[in-house]
């Protein structure tokens, strides 16, 4: 995500020639771009993964060139946001119009690539064609003569296979000579179907093109993975394994991180003599960061699995299998992939909606993807479920805690589906009917480097979040909970036993700035069974859900500083009509779970919604409807659980 530069600022770099890469989705365009520029744009085997304009630079033989990786497209007649980017950039009036165009053509589907080349040749730009996957063409016993192809199409043609340094260097040098690129005497026809077909046929014939034989390996795998019965069973098993790995494999790593931060906080408390400073660093900084960083293993694993599914080509099969289900709510298979990515984080999920050709589908998916159970909800769910369900409770051989967690994932998915259905209806009306089409990529062995890069980017992004917004928020919450400082004399005069640390801490927190804010807002959440301390947690969590855990940790350790791991379940109402009653009753805990399931508490999601939709309208609608949905469903959940328990 970090590599998607803002193209308009890069474009203003004076004196540099711009060359854009154009090609079908999956034609190897991003791979070529990375090889040329050395800049790591994300590469995956899912069609349309290049969803953003990506800029890189190249220095060769004293020439500086700007490279732009355009989104993959099948036609310059734009019908999706991705294609609109391409058409806008290449338009004659465009400020970003490149000086030259590299048309990337997959040698295994040359016919279709030639259609796009013909359209590109109408643009009046210097053009060079790059043939990719020539090795794959040979492997599947096809053949092609690039020299004869070049004379047939009238533009230079270079063949570049992945990992071939010599071919890549030749291409780099050819890029600097774009003024000398050959131009056809008569450009190919692009305004008429039948004429274009005969042009393509004559080019293929002149180039001695033998189309590749069918990919036997992919067909054999597909006959199993897409079998009506076997394929469905494998899909369900894949989804189960997907989640099991995230929870089971991550557990020991998480324990290690928890132990480390506990040790670090203990060290700080022992070494720093000044009480308030020790508390700030141990509770505010280390406690706050540690309670969030503990989820690093889960996030890394989640992104590793998604990268694995994408780079093998199975993710496209998932879209094939799930398209009909998504069709029921008016969406398509690719929306399912966006929803699945949202299980990691709504931000990449929302970004991946750019592969959806229909803008209505795109809005409906974007607006509802944040309801999917993202990894930021995990810390909150883990703590709340532990309070709700004893660890050893079982149903058959399955742990009840795990089942409740699974239920929360189902709740999120069901909420997403229902909301998407509503949005599609509301956005209805007669717009352009966009077709659903998707190319099935061949199965490829996953590249370790790509998966490692996906894990690294996800973890680095998460750590930046922890270092930025989450740490700032959790320190601000700590300060609000600790200030103003109350002297012993004031406590004595208020009748507090200063020898009782718990009583002192309780008095301190009850008279803190956070308490004032929490108590002012608390009436809003009173019907859900939340006291002012939970309200303070919810306010802190508006920026990022994980902050809730850090805030609760600070509140509970303030009540019992000798035992920071104290069970939150022992907290009671401090005042009001419920004074002395347990705070985290089953109805209140369930209400809190449901509230977190549906509320939009994430500044990153709001920011990406603003960026992707182009206005503040959609993020505001999302925030409004999700908050209302969260409050109402939490209220209903509290009443229902209350009635069931009696």
């Amino acid at each position, binding site marked *: 995500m970090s590599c998607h530069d*803002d193209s*308009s600022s890069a474009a203003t770099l004076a004196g540099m020639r711009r060359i854009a890469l154009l090609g079908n989705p999956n034609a190897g365009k991003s791979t070529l771009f990375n090889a040329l520029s050395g800049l790591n744009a994300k590469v995956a085997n899912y069609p349309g993964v290049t969803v953003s*304009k990506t800029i890189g630079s190249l220095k060769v033989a004293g020439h500086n060139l700007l490279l732009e990786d355009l989104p993959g497209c*099948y*036609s*310059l*007649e*734009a*019908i999706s*946001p*991705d294609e*609109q*980017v391409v*058409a*806008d950039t*290449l*338009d*004659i009036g465009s400020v970003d119009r490149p000086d030259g165009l590299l048309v990337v053509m997959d040698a295994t*589907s040359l*016919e*279709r690539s030639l*259609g*796009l080349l013909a*359209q590109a040749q109408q*643009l009046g730009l210097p053009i060079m064609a790059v043939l990719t996957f020539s090795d794959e063409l040979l492997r599947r016993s*096809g053949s092609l003569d690039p020299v004869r192809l070049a004379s047939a199409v009238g533009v230079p043609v270079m063949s570049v296979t992945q990992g071939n340094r010599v071919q890549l260097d030749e291409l780099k040098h050819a890029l600097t000579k774009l003024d000398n690129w050959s131009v056809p005497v008569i450009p190919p026809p*692009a*305004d*008429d*179907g*039948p004429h274009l*077909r005969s042009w393509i046929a004559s080019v293929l014939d002149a180039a001695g093109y033998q189309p*590749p034989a*069918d*990919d036997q390996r992919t067909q054999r795998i*597909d006959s199993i993975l*897409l079998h*009506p*019965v076997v394929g*469905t069973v494998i899909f369900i098993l894949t989804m189960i394994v997907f989640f099991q790995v995230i929870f089971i494999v991550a557990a020991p790593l998480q324990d290690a991180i928890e132990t480390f931060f506990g040790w670090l906080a203990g060290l700080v408390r022992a070494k720093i003599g000044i009480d308030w400073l020790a508390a700030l660093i141990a509770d505010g900084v280390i406690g706050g960061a540690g309670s969030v960083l503990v989820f690093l293993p889960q996030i890394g694993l989640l992104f590793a699995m998604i990268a694995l599914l994408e780079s093998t080509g199975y993710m496209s099969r998932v*879209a*094939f*299998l799930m*398209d*009909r*289900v998504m*069709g029921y709510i008016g969406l398509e*298979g690719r929306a399912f992939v966006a929803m699945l990515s949202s299980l990691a984080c709504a931000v990449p999920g929302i970004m991946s909606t750019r592969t959806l050709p229909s*803008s*209505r589908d795109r*809005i409906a998916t974007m607006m509802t993807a944040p309801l999917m159970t993202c990894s930021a909800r995990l810390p909150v769910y883990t703590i709340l479920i532990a309070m709700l369900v004893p660890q050893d409770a079982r149903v058959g051989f399955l742990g009840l805690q795990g089942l409740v967690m699974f239920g929360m994932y189902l709740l999120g998915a069901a909420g997403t589906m229902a909301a998407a259905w509503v949005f599609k209806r509301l956005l209805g009306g007669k717009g*352009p*009917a966009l*077709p*659903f*089409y998707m190319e*099935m990529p061949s199965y490829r062995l996953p590249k370790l480097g790509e998966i490692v890069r996906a894990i690294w980017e996800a973890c680095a992004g998460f750590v930046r979040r922890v270092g930025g917004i989450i740490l700032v928020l959790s320190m601000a919450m700590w300060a609000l909970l600790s200030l103003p400082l109350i002297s012993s004399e004031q406590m004595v005069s208020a009748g507090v036993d200063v020898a009782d640390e718990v009583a002192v801490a309780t008095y301190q927190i009850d008279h803190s700035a956070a308490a004032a804010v929490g108590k002012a807002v608390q009436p809003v959440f009173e019907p859900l069974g939340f006291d002012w301390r939970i309200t303070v947690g919810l306010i802190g969590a508006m920026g990022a859900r994980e902050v809730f855990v850090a805030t609760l940790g600070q509140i509970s350790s303030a009540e019992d500083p000798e035992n920071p791991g104290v069970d939150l379940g022992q907290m009671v109402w401090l005042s009001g009509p419920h004074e002395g009653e347990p705070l985290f009753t089953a109805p209140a805990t369930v209400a809190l779970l449901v509230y977190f399931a549906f509320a939009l508490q994430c500044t990153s999601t709001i920011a990406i919604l603003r960026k992707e*939709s*182009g*206005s503040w309208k959609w993020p505001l609608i999302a925030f409004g409807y999700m908050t209302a949905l969260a409050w109402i469903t939490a209220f209903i959940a509290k009443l229902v659980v209350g009635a069931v328990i009696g």
Partner: protein
Amino acid sequence: MAAPLERQFLGDANLNDVTTIAAQLSKRSVGICAESDCIPMGRMRCGECGVIAGFSEQTDMAVSRRLFDLGFAEGTQVQFVRRAPLRDPLMFRIGSSQMLLRAEEANRILVRID
């Protein structure tokens, strides 16, 4: 850097005014087939091969032009590979690639079975 979505809600006509190349391409004609010995592509049997005869006459030809750009052009050989377990979408082999279409779109394309 996607185009603002607001613009896309305006529909086809305005979209085409945005860029000259897109406007030019939206005037293309693709082969209409009115012959009676053809069947809609979505009605092919699993594993069956055929040759594309053209597109059925529709008010909205933008979809047909896109199907054409995807390679579903008159005279091209096509094979119906499989159906998803829930009946839709359908997978076709066109040229050397495999393409998913829903029955609704596939039925815009008419094929002649060998």
